[in-house]
Protein backbone atom coordinates (compact mmCIF):
# COMPACT_ATOMS: atom_id res chain seq x y z
CA UNK A 1 0.00 0.00 0.00
CA UNK A 2 1.21 3.48 -0.84
CA UNK A 3 0.36 6.79 0.72
CA UNK A 4 0.51 9.45 -1.98
CA UNK A 5 0.30 13.17 -1.53
CA UNK A 6 0.07 14.87 -4.94
CA UNK A 7 0.59 18.54 -5.72
CA UNK A 8 -0.18 19.76 -2.24
CA UNK A 9 -0.41 23.53 -1.90
CA UNK A 10 -1.40 25.41 1.20
CA UNK A 11 -1.20 28.97 2.49
CA UNK A 12 -2.04 30.31 5.95
CA UNK A 13 -2.18 33.84 4.48
CA UNK A 14 -3.29 34.58 0.95
CA UNK A 15 -0.45 35.05 -1.55
CA UNK A 16 2.05 33.67 0.97
CA UNK A 17 2.10 29.94 0.25
CA UNK A 18 4.00 27.73 2.64
CA UNK A 19 3.52 24.50 0.68
CA UNK A 20 3.58 24.60 -3.12
CA UNK A 21 3.08 21.68 -5.52
CA UNK A 22 4.57 19.29 -3.05
CA UNK A 23 4.40 15.59 -3.79
CA UNK A 24 5.50 12.74 -1.58
CA UNK A 25 4.97 8.99 -1.65
CA UNK A 26 5.40 6.61 1.25
CA UNK A 27 5.32 2.79 0.95
CA UNK A 28 3.92 0.82 3.88
CA UNK A 29 7.12 -1.16 4.45
CA UNK A 30 9.52 1.73 4.73
CA UNK A 31 10.46 4.57 7.00
CA UNK A 32 10.85 7.83 5.13
CA UNK A 33 12.79 10.55 6.87
CA UNK A 34 11.99 14.19 6.21
CA UNK A 35 14.44 16.88 7.17
CA UNK A 36 14.05 20.64 7.05
CA UNK A 37 14.63 23.93 8.78
CA UNK A 38 12.42 25.31 11.52
CA UNK A 39 9.41 27.17 10.19
CA UNK A 40 9.75 25.74 6.71
CA UNK A 41 6.36 24.02 6.79
CA UNK A 42 7.17 20.47 7.88
CA UNK A 43 4.47 20.42 10.52
CA UNK A 44 1.98 21.98 8.12
CA UNK A 45 2.63 19.17 5.67
CA UNK A 46 2.14 16.63 8.47
CA UNK A 47 -1.22 18.18 9.35
CA UNK A 48 -2.33 18.20 5.71
CA UNK A 49 -1.45 14.54 5.20
CA UNK A 50 -3.06 13.39 8.43
CA UNK A 51 -6.28 15.31 7.85
CA UNK A 52 -5.99 18.08 10.44
CA UNK A 53 -5.96 20.77 7.76
CA UNK A 54 -8.78 20.36 5.26
CA UNK A 55 -8.77 23.33 2.88
CA UNK A 56 -5.60 22.53 0.96
CA UNK A 57 -5.36 21.99 -2.78
CA UNK A 58 -4.07 18.71 -4.16
CA UNK A 59 -4.93 15.16 -3.12
CA UNK A 60 -3.93 12.74 -0.39
CA UNK A 61 -4.66 9.15 -1.40
CA UNK A 62 -4.13 5.62 -0.13
CA UNK A 63 -3.57 3.40 -3.21
CA UNK A 64 -5.40 6.01 -5.30
CA UNK A 65 -8.44 6.03 -3.04
CA UNK A 66 -9.46 9.22 -1.27
CA UNK A 67 -9.69 8.80 2.49
CA UNK A 68 -13.05 8.61 4.25
CA UNK A 69 -13.18 11.33 6.86
CA UNK A 70 -16.09 10.16 9.04
CA UNK A 71 -14.46 7.03 10.42
CA UNK A 72 -11.09 6.38 12.10
CA UNK A 73 -8.49 8.22 10.04
CA UNK A 74 -5.92 5.67 8.77
CA UNK A 75 -3.08 8.20 8.83
CA UNK A 76 -2.28 9.13 12.42
CA UNK A 77 -0.15 12.08 13.42
CA UNK A 78 1.96 11.94 16.57
CA UNK A 79 2.69 15.39 17.89
CA UNK A 80 5.83 16.90 19.31
CA UNK A 81 4.06 17.96 22.52
CA UNK A 82 2.01 15.07 23.93
CA UNK A 83 0.59 17.06 26.86
CA UNK A 84 -1.48 19.20 24.49
CA UNK A 85 -3.11 16.16 22.93
CA UNK A 86 -4.60 14.83 26.15
CA UNK A 87 -7.71 15.95 27.95
CA UNK A 88 -6.39 17.31 31.28
CA UNK A 89 -9.35 15.82 33.16
CA UNK A 90 -9.02 12.30 31.83
CA UNK A 91 -6.93 9.69 33.57
CA UNK A 92 -4.40 7.94 31.37
CA UNK A 93 -6.35 4.68 30.93
CA UNK A 94 -9.21 6.69 29.46
CA UNK A 95 -6.83 8.65 27.23
CA UNK A 96 -5.42 5.39 25.91
CA UNK A 97 -8.72 3.57 25.43
CA UNK A 98 -10.22 6.46 23.46
CA UNK A 99 -8.32 4.93 20.56
CA UNK A 100 -7.99 1.25 21.53
CA UNK A 101 -6.94 -1.14 24.28
CA UNK A 102 -3.45 -2.34 23.43
CA UNK A 103 -2.34 -5.81 24.58
CA UNK A 104 -0.14 -6.05 27.67
CA UNK A 105 2.98 -7.14 25.72
CA UNK A 106 2.85 -4.02 23.62
CA UNK A 107 2.53 -1.87 26.68
CA UNK A 108 5.56 -3.59 28.17
CA UNK A 109 7.70 -3.07 25.06
CA UNK A 110 6.98 0.64 25.28
CA UNK A 111 7.90 0.61 28.96
CA UNK A 112 4.44 1.64 30.14
CA UNK A 113 4.03 1.05 33.85
CA UNK A 114 0.66 -0.11 35.12
CA UNK A 115 0.38 2.53 37.84
CA UNK A 116 0.68 5.29 35.23
CA UNK A 117 -2.75 4.33 33.95
CA UNK A 118 -4.45 5.67 37.07
CA UNK A 119 -2.82 9.09 36.92
CA UNK A 120 -3.71 12.43 35.38
CA UNK A 121 -1.71 13.74 32.42
CA UNK A 122 -0.13 16.49 34.50
CA UNK A 123 1.37 13.91 36.85
CA UNK A 124 3.50 12.31 34.14
CA UNK A 125 6.58 13.67 32.39
CA UNK A 126 6.74 14.54 28.70
CA UNK A 127 8.59 11.34 27.87
CA UNK A 128 6.06 9.19 29.71
CA UNK A 129 3.16 10.96 28.00
CA UNK A 130 4.78 10.54 24.61
CA UNK A 131 4.75 6.75 25.04
CA UNK A 132 1.01 6.96 25.54
CA UNK A 133 0.47 9.12 22.49
CA UNK A 134 2.54 6.78 20.32
CA UNK A 135 0.75 3.71 21.61
CA UNK A 136 -2.57 5.44 21.07
CA UNK A 137 -1.73 6.00 17.40
CA UNK A 138 -0.92 2.32 16.82
CA UNK A 139 -4.58 1.32 16.56
CA UNK A 140 -5.11 -1.72 14.28
CA UNK A 141 -6.88 0.54 11.79
CA UNK A 142 -3.80 2.74 11.40
CA UNK A 143 -2.01 2.34 8.07
CA UNK A 144 0.51 5.16 8.27
CA UNK A 145 2.20 7.06 11.06
CA UNK A 146 3.38 10.63 10.70
CA UNK A 147 5.92 11.22 13.45
CA UNK A 148 6.48 14.94 13.84
CA UNK A 149 9.60 15.38 16.03
CA UNK A 150 8.26 12.78 18.43
CA UNK A 151 11.52 12.10 20.26
CA UNK A 152 12.88 15.62 20.64
CA UNK A 153 12.11 15.86 24.34
CA UNK A 154 13.44 12.39 25.25
CA UNK A 155 16.88 11.43 26.49
CA UNK A 156 19.07 9.23 24.30
CA UNK A 157 18.29 5.93 26.04
CA UNK A 158 14.53 6.45 25.99
CA UNK A 159 14.74 7.63 22.40
CA UNK A 160 16.32 4.33 21.36
CA UNK A 161 13.80 2.26 23.36
CA UNK A 162 10.78 4.03 21.92
CA UNK A 163 11.99 4.10 18.33
CA UNK A 164 12.94 0.40 18.52
CA UNK A 165 9.50 -0.53 19.77
CA UNK A 166 7.75 1.67 17.21
CA UNK A 167 9.82 0.43 14.26
CA UNK A 168 9.33 -3.20 15.31
CA UNK A 169 5.58 -2.87 15.59
CA UNK A 170 5.31 -1.04 12.26
CA UNK A 171 7.42 -3.63 10.44
CA UNK A 172 5.20 -6.44 11.74
CA UNK A 173 1.92 -4.71 11.00
CA UNK A 174 2.86 -3.08 7.68
CA UNK A 175 2.58 0.47 8.84
CA UNK A 176 4.55 3.07 6.89
CA UNK A 177 6.24 5.88 8.76
CA UNK A 178 7.06 9.43 7.80
CA UNK A 179 9.59 10.57 10.37
CA UNK A 180 10.04 14.32 10.51
CA UNK A 181 13.02 15.73 12.36
CA UNK A 182 15.94 18.09 12.08
CA UNK A 183 18.19 15.58 13.80
CA UNK A 184 20.26 14.18 10.93
CA UNK A 185 21.93 11.44 12.99
CA UNK A 186 18.61 10.08 14.19
CA UNK A 187 17.14 9.95 10.68
CA UNK A 188 20.23 8.23 9.30
CA UNK A 189 19.72 5.44 11.82
CA UNK A 190 15.97 4.89 11.54
CA UNK A 191 15.05 5.91 7.98
CA UNK A 192 15.38 3.94 4.75
CA UNK A 193 15.34 7.15 2.68
CA UNK A 194 15.87 10.74 3.71
CA UNK A 195 14.13 13.56 1.86
CA UNK A 196 15.06 17.20 2.22
CA UNK A 197 12.00 19.32 2.69
CA UNK A 198 13.35 22.31 0.73
CA UNK A 199 13.93 20.11 -2.31
CA UNK A 200 10.41 18.67 -2.52
CA UNK A 201 8.65 21.92 -1.64
CA UNK A 202 8.68 23.94 -4.89
CA UNK A 203 8.39 27.45 -3.52
Amino acid at each position, binding site marked *: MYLNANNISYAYKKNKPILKNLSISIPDNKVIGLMGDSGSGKSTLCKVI*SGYIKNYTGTVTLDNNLIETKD*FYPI*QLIFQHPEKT*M*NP*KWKMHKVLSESWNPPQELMDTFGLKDNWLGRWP*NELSGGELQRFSILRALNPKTKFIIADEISTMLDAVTQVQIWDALLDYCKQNKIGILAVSHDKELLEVIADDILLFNEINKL
Partner: protein
Amino acid sequence: MTKTEEKHKKFLNLNLRTKTLLIIGIAFLILFSVFVSNYLIDHTAVLTSNFYNINQPPSFEHWFGTDWMGRDMFMRTLLGLGISIGVGAFASIISTIIAILLGVFSSVNTIVDEAVTAVIDLFGSIPHILLIILVSLAFGGGYYGVVMAVGLTHWTPLARVLRAEIKKINTSEYIKLSTEFGKSKMWIAKKHIFPLIISQIIVGVILMFPHAIMHEASISFLGFGLPAHEPAIGIILSESMKYLSMGYWWLAFYPGLALLFLVLLFDLIGENVHKLLDPQSAQE
Protein backbone atom coordinates in the same frame (compact mmCIF):
# COMPACT_ATOMS: atom_id res chain seq x y z
CA MET B 1 11.10 14.37 66.89
CA THR B 2 9.37 11.74 68.97
CA LYS B 3 6.53 9.67 67.69
CA THR B 4 3.79 11.38 69.66
CA GLU B 5 5.01 14.77 68.49
CA GLU B 6 4.90 13.57 64.91
CA LYS B 7 1.37 12.29 65.32
CA HIS B 8 0.32 15.58 66.84
CA LYS B 9 1.85 17.50 63.96
CA LYS B 10 0.05 15.34 61.43
CA PHE B 11 -3.28 16.00 63.07
CA LEU B 12 -2.80 19.76 62.80
CA ASN B 13 -1.28 19.64 59.32
CA LEU B 14 -4.20 17.97 57.62
CA ASN B 15 -3.56 17.57 53.94
CA LEU B 16 -4.90 20.35 51.75
CA ARG B 17 -7.69 18.25 50.29
CA THR B 18 -9.10 17.34 53.69
CA LYS B 19 -8.73 20.92 54.86
CA THR B 20 -10.55 22.23 51.80
CA LEU B 21 -13.33 19.70 52.27
CA LEU B 22 -13.58 20.66 55.94
CA ILE B 23 -13.89 24.37 55.10
CA ILE B 24 -16.56 23.64 52.50
CA GLY B 25 -18.42 21.39 54.92
CA ILE B 26 -18.47 23.91 57.78
CA ALA B 27 -19.45 26.83 55.53
CA PHE B 28 -22.20 24.79 53.93
CA LEU B 29 -23.48 23.68 57.33
CA ILE B 30 -23.76 27.29 58.54
CA LEU B 31 -25.61 28.37 55.41
CA PHE B 32 -27.88 25.37 55.54
CA SER B 33 -28.79 25.94 59.18
CA VAL B 34 -29.57 29.61 58.46
CA PHE B 35 -31.84 28.50 55.63
CA VAL B 36 -33.58 25.78 57.64
CA SER B 37 -34.03 28.03 60.68
CA ASN B 38 -36.39 30.12 58.54
CA TYR B 39 -38.86 27.26 58.47
CA LEU B 40 -38.56 26.55 62.18
CA ILE B 41 -39.06 30.14 63.36
CA ASP B 42 -42.66 31.19 63.98
CA HIS B 43 -42.80 34.27 61.75
CA THR B 44 -45.84 35.98 63.27
CA ALA B 45 -44.63 35.57 66.86
CA VAL B 46 -41.22 36.96 66.04
CA LEU B 47 -42.44 39.88 63.97
CA THR B 48 -45.18 41.06 66.34
CA SER B 49 -44.38 44.35 68.01
CA ASN B 50 -43.75 44.32 71.74
CA PHE B 51 -43.61 47.84 73.17
CA TYR B 52 -42.35 46.74 76.60
CA ASN B 53 -38.84 46.33 75.36
CA ILE B 54 -38.14 48.75 72.50
CA ASN B 55 -34.66 49.88 71.47
CA GLN B 56 -32.85 47.51 73.81
CA PRO B 57 -29.06 47.34 73.25
CA PRO B 58 -27.54 43.90 72.59
CA SER B 59 -27.81 41.59 75.63
CA PHE B 60 -27.85 37.86 76.26
CA GLU B 61 -31.63 37.90 75.95
CA HIS B 62 -31.58 39.80 72.63
CA TRP B 63 -28.24 39.09 70.97
CA PHE B 64 -28.58 41.78 68.31
CA GLY B 65 -30.78 44.10 70.46
CA THR B 66 -34.35 45.10 69.64
CA ASP B 67 -35.78 47.74 67.29
CA TRP B 68 -38.25 50.62 67.80
CA MET B 69 -41.17 48.16 67.77
CA GLY B 70 -39.56 45.80 70.24
CA ARG B 71 -38.86 43.05 67.72
CA ASP B 72 -35.82 40.89 68.31
CA MET B 73 -33.17 41.90 65.76
CA PHE B 74 -31.43 38.53 65.80
CA MET B 75 -34.58 36.80 64.62
CA ARG B 76 -35.25 39.47 62.00
CA THR B 77 -31.70 39.19 60.72
CA LEU B 78 -31.97 35.41 60.53
CA LEU B 79 -35.19 35.69 58.52
CA GLY B 80 -33.56 38.31 56.31
CA LEU B 81 -30.61 36.05 55.56
CA GLY B 82 -33.04 33.24 54.69
CA ILE B 83 -34.77 35.49 52.16
CA SER B 84 -31.37 36.49 50.75
CA ILE B 85 -30.39 32.85 50.24
CA GLY B 86 -33.72 32.12 48.57
CA VAL B 87 -33.38 35.05 46.16
CA GLY B 88 -29.77 34.09 45.51
CA ALA B 89 -30.69 30.49 44.72
CA PHE B 90 -33.53 31.27 42.31
CA ALA B 91 -31.61 34.07 40.60
CA SER B 92 -28.52 31.90 40.20
CA ILE B 93 -30.54 29.10 38.61
CA ILE B 94 -32.10 31.50 36.08
CA SER B 95 -28.73 33.12 35.33
CA THR B 96 -26.98 29.80 34.91
CA ILE B 97 -29.57 28.46 32.47
CA ILE B 98 -29.24 31.59 30.32
CA ALA B 99 -25.43 31.47 30.51
CA ILE B 100 -25.25 27.79 29.49
CA LEU B 101 -27.67 28.27 26.59
CA LEU B 102 -25.75 31.25 25.23
CA GLY B 103 -22.36 29.64 25.82
CA VAL B 104 -23.29 26.47 23.95
CA PHE B 105 -25.13 28.44 21.27
CA SER B 106 -22.02 30.51 20.54
CA SER B 107 -20.08 27.44 19.44
CA VAL B 108 -22.42 26.79 16.48
CA ASN B 109 -20.70 29.12 14.03
CA THR B 110 -18.97 32.49 13.83
CA ILE B 111 -22.08 34.53 13.01
CA VAL B 112 -23.99 33.19 16.03
CA ASP B 113 -20.86 33.70 18.11
CA GLU B 114 -20.68 37.37 17.08
CA ALA B 115 -24.35 37.80 17.95
CA VAL B 116 -23.92 36.20 21.37
CA THR B 117 -20.89 38.37 22.12
CA ALA B 118 -22.87 41.45 21.11
CA VAL B 119 -25.73 40.50 23.45
CA ILE B 120 -23.29 39.88 26.32
CA ASP B 121 -21.59 43.24 25.71
CA LEU B 122 -24.95 44.99 25.45
CA PHE B 123 -26.10 43.69 28.82
CA GLY B 124 -22.69 44.33 30.33
CA SER B 125 -22.69 47.95 29.20
CA ILE B 126 -25.89 48.97 31.02
CA PRO B 127 -25.31 50.07 34.64
CA HIS B 128 -26.09 47.04 36.75
CA ILE B 129 -28.24 48.58 39.49
CA LEU B 130 -30.24 50.61 36.98
CA LEU B 131 -31.01 47.53 34.89
CA ILE B 132 -32.02 45.54 37.97
CA ILE B 133 -34.40 48.30 39.10
CA LEU B 134 -35.97 48.58 35.63
CA VAL B 135 -36.45 44.82 35.22
CA SER B 136 -37.77 44.51 38.78
CA LEU B 137 -40.36 47.22 38.11
CA ALA B 138 -41.25 45.64 34.76
CA PHE B 139 -42.04 42.36 36.53
CA GLY B 140 -44.20 44.13 39.07
CA GLY B 141 -41.74 44.28 41.95
CA GLY B 142 -41.94 42.13 45.08
CA TYR B 143 -40.18 38.81 45.58
CA TYR B 144 -40.93 37.64 42.02
CA GLY B 145 -39.71 40.92 40.54
CA VAL B 146 -36.43 40.86 42.48
CA VAL B 147 -35.70 37.22 41.59
CA MET B 148 -36.34 37.87 37.89
CA ALA B 149 -34.38 41.12 37.90
CA VAL B 150 -31.33 39.66 39.59
CA GLY B 151 -31.57 36.43 37.57
CA LEU B 152 -31.84 38.18 34.22
CA THR B 153 -28.84 40.42 34.82
CA HIS B 154 -26.19 38.18 36.38
CA TRP B 155 -25.51 35.73 33.57
CA THR B 156 -23.01 37.86 31.62
CA PRO B 157 -19.75 36.87 33.38
CA LEU B 158 -20.59 33.16 33.37
CA ALA B 159 -21.75 33.26 29.73
CA ARG B 160 -18.50 34.97 28.77
CA VAL B 161 -16.42 32.41 30.66
CA LEU B 162 -18.32 29.45 29.18
CA ARG B 163 -18.10 30.83 25.65
CA ALA B 164 -14.34 31.31 25.97
CA GLU B 165 -13.90 27.91 27.62
CA ILE B 166 -15.87 26.04 24.95
CA LYS B 167 -13.96 27.88 22.25
CA LYS B 168 -10.64 26.98 23.84
CA ILE B 169 -11.59 23.32 24.18
CA ASN B 170 -12.93 23.15 20.64
CA THR B 171 -9.66 24.36 19.15
CA SER B 172 -7.49 22.12 21.33
CA GLU B 173 -5.48 19.29 19.84
CA TYR B 174 -7.16 16.55 21.87
CA ILE B 175 -10.54 17.40 20.34
CA LYS B 176 -9.05 17.29 16.85
CA LEU B 177 -7.38 14.00 17.71
CA SER B 178 -10.72 12.68 18.89
CA THR B 179 -12.26 13.41 15.48
CA GLU B 180 -9.23 11.67 13.94
CA PHE B 181 -10.15 8.61 15.98
CA GLY B 182 -13.56 8.77 14.32
CA LYS B 183 -15.59 10.00 17.28
CA SER B 184 -18.83 11.84 16.54
CA LYS B 185 -19.56 15.44 17.52
CA MET B 186 -22.10 14.31 20.10
CA TRP B 187 -19.62 11.88 21.64
CA ILE B 188 -17.02 14.65 21.91
CA ALA B 189 -19.51 17.08 23.43
CA LYS B 190 -20.60 14.49 26.00
CA LYS B 191 -17.25 12.95 26.93
CA HIS B 192 -14.79 15.79 26.38
CA ILE B 193 -16.46 19.17 26.55
CA PHE B 194 -19.20 18.67 29.17
CA PRO B 195 -16.93 17.25 31.94
CA LEU B 196 -14.50 20.11 31.31
CA ILE B 197 -17.06 22.89 31.65
CA ILE B 198 -19.19 21.39 34.44
CA SER B 199 -16.68 22.53 37.07
CA GLN B 200 -16.74 26.04 35.59
CA ILE B 201 -20.53 25.96 35.80
CA ILE B 202 -20.59 24.78 39.43
CA VAL B 203 -18.04 27.37 40.54
CA GLY B 204 -19.79 30.02 38.49
CA VAL B 205 -23.11 29.31 40.19
CA ILE B 206 -21.67 29.41 43.69
CA LEU B 207 -19.75 32.62 43.02
CA MET B 208 -22.92 34.14 41.54
CA PHE B 209 -24.65 33.87 44.93
CA PRO B 210 -22.73 36.70 46.66
CA HIS B 211 -23.46 39.07 43.75
CA ALA B 212 -27.12 38.16 43.67
CA ILE B 213 -27.47 38.59 47.44
CA MET B 214 -25.68 41.95 47.48
CA HIS B 215 -27.78 43.29 44.62
CA GLU B 216 -31.00 42.06 46.18
CA ALA B 217 -30.04 43.86 49.41
CA SER B 218 -29.06 47.06 47.61
CA ILE B 219 -32.26 47.44 45.59
CA SER B 220 -34.33 46.56 48.65
CA PHE B 221 -32.37 49.24 50.49
CA LEU B 222 -33.18 51.73 47.73
CA GLY B 223 -36.85 50.82 47.98
CA PHE B 224 -37.30 49.11 44.60
CA GLY B 225 -37.04 45.56 45.81
CA LEU B 226 -38.90 43.58 48.41
CA PRO B 227 -41.97 45.13 50.09
CA ALA B 228 -41.46 46.90 53.42
CA HIS B 229 -43.17 44.23 55.56
CA GLU B 230 -40.61 41.56 54.61
CA PRO B 231 -37.70 41.23 57.06
CA ALA B 232 -35.11 41.49 54.24
CA ILE B 233 -31.66 42.79 55.16
CA GLY B 234 -32.01 45.69 52.72
CA ILE B 235 -35.27 46.75 54.39
CA ILE B 236 -33.78 46.41 57.88
CA LEU B 237 -30.82 48.58 56.92
CA SER B 238 -32.86 51.30 55.25
CA GLU B 239 -35.30 51.47 58.21
CA SER B 240 -32.50 51.65 60.75
CA MET B 241 -31.02 54.67 58.94
CA LYS B 242 -33.56 56.87 60.71
CA TYR B 243 -32.51 55.59 64.14
CA LEU B 244 -28.74 55.62 63.71
CA SER B 245 -28.47 59.30 64.67
CA MET B 246 -30.17 58.47 67.98
CA GLY B 247 -27.32 56.13 68.82
CA TYR B 248 -29.09 52.80 68.14
CA TRP B 249 -26.04 51.49 66.29
CA TRP B 250 -26.94 47.81 66.71
CA LEU B 251 -29.90 48.15 64.33
CA ALA B 252 -27.59 48.46 61.32
CA PHE B 253 -24.32 47.04 62.60
CA TYR B 254 -25.27 43.41 63.24
CA PRO B 255 -27.55 42.84 60.21
CA GLY B 256 -24.92 44.45 57.97
CA LEU B 257 -22.20 42.29 59.47
CA ALA B 258 -24.37 39.19 59.09
CA LEU B 259 -24.93 39.95 55.40
CA LEU B 260 -21.20 40.43 54.88
CA PHE B 261 -20.54 37.15 56.67
CA LEU B 262 -23.07 35.33 54.46
CA VAL B 263 -21.50 36.71 51.30
CA LEU B 264 -18.00 35.78 52.46
CA LEU B 265 -19.15 32.24 53.26
CA PHE B 266 -20.43 31.75 49.70
CA ASP B 267 -17.21 33.20 48.37
CA LEU B 268 -15.23 30.80 50.55
CA ILE B 269 -17.21 27.80 49.31
CA GLY B 270 -16.80 28.92 45.70
CA GLU B 271 -13.05 29.37 45.97
CA ASN B 272 -12.55 26.04 47.71
CA VAL B 273 -14.79 24.07 45.36
CA HIS B 274 -12.83 25.61 42.50
CA LYS B 275 -9.61 24.39 44.15
CA LEU B 276 -11.03 20.87 44.45
CA LEU B 277 -12.35 20.62 40.90
CA ASP B 278 -9.26 21.91 39.16
CA PRO B 279 -6.87 18.96 38.61
CA GLN B 280 -3.90 21.33 38.57
CA SER B 281 -4.49 22.24 42.21
CA ALA B 282 -6.60 19.28 43.38
CA GLN B 283 -3.66 16.91 43.69
CA GLU B 284 -1.34 19.19 45.64
